[in-house]
């Protein structure tokens, strides 16, 4: 039961299909884009939990462009994992500085990818749990606040009345 929605972006059809097959087998909800341009279009209209994108792509929008689009549209909620060729670790570090969650080197190792996603998944669950707690606290706090503030004003009114009477 994986609930992450993942966008796979790679101009290389075999990588794209392989990733899609792996991820669907693990029950992730997967969409694909054939280049950065298409990915940016999809991201602007849909929310993805994770964007798994090739770093080097033809056509004007590379992995960093996809990362920027995800950050601009969904802030930090979308986690971006870059896929890099062996020689481009430096670029991957640049991407991490710009807020990418992680990077994977080609050829992608199946288990490594799943471990990264598992990590993101449990982090998302933690965030949701923290959010639920916060919501519960907010509701409790708002209810308590209304009661306490009414009492505070009422006691103050009665005090004034008493001191006038005295």
């Amino acid at each position: 039961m994986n609930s992450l929605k993942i966008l796979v972006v790679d101009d290389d059809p075999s990588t794209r299909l392989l990733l899609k097959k792996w991820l669907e087998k693990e029950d992730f909800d997967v969409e694909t884009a054939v280049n950065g341009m298409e990915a940016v279009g999809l991201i602007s209209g849909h929310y993805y939990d994770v964007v798994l994108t090739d770093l080097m792509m033809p056509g004007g929008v590379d992995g960093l462009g996809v990362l920027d689009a995800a950050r601009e549209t969904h802030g930090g909620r979308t986690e971006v994992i870059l896929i890099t060729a062996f020689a481009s670790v430096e670029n991957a570090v640049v991407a991490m500085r710009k807020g990418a969650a992680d990077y994977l080197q080609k050829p992608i190792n199946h288990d490594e990818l799943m471990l990264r996603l598992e990590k993101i998944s449990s982090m998302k669950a933690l965030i949701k749990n923290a959010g639920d707690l916060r919501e519960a606290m907010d509701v409790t706090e708002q209810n308590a606040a209304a009661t306490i503030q009414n009492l505070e004003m009422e006691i103050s009114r009665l005090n004034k009345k008493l001191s006038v009477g005295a």
Partner: protein
Amino acid sequence: MIKIKPEELTLLAQYIHNISGIFYDQKKAYLFESRLGPIVEESGLSNYTELYHKAKANPKKGIEKKIIDAISTNETLFFRDTGPFDLLKQKIMPDLIDARSAKTAGRQVPLKIWSSACSTGQEVYSIAIVLKELLFDFKKYNIKLLGTDISDAAVAQASSGKYNKFEIERGLARNTLQKFFTLNGGSWKIKDEIRGVATFKKQNLMLPFNGLGKFDIIFCRNVAIYFSMADRKKVFNKLADMLVPDGYLIIGSTESLTGVCPKFVPERHMRSVYYKLK
């Protein structure tokens, strides 16, 4: 995690109260263990009694600071409970500026605001953002916004004005984020125009407030809840002396001053209660 013994609970609870005023319930052993256990371990100590002695032996040194950072609850968010910020915008600032402008005749209008338990700074910057959106041009005003907290780590982060993506997602509308923060690497930094009106320093609310002057508005939200009733009384009585006669005190939405401090009277505006001096 190293287990805490019953006699250590008493010892540490007393020590925590002495250094911070924070009341730690001895029934909550897990709280002592989860917050202090890591310090015991990383200091190479074997139990909480040793931690106590090491901290006591050198109060100016790192261990006490580490303990304070660990025991203080830094839960905060931008615009926590929107009520006080609406209150500031709709009632307090217009009233204060009317009153102050009449006296200053063309000179800069002075405004001093104190966030007395500012944690990592979100309350201070939320106040500053409200002021900026309300007043537009800070040059017509002499705004001093002071944020204090007992935790060095919290004060340091507040002062840096940097927040990670989790902190930024709490309470900040997207357009406010884009208007007042710049993205730098993985974190967002408050812009200089906002950072510039704020000052941060360490202040233990249990100790005397020296050299701070008086304030037009004091925020003291959701901190006294961690103090005993006797300490709450002390703190709010001291805060009363830090307000100008027509100043405003804002406390947490679920807090009450009934039976705590007779120097204040509550007043209500919309959904918020604030306090003025009697």
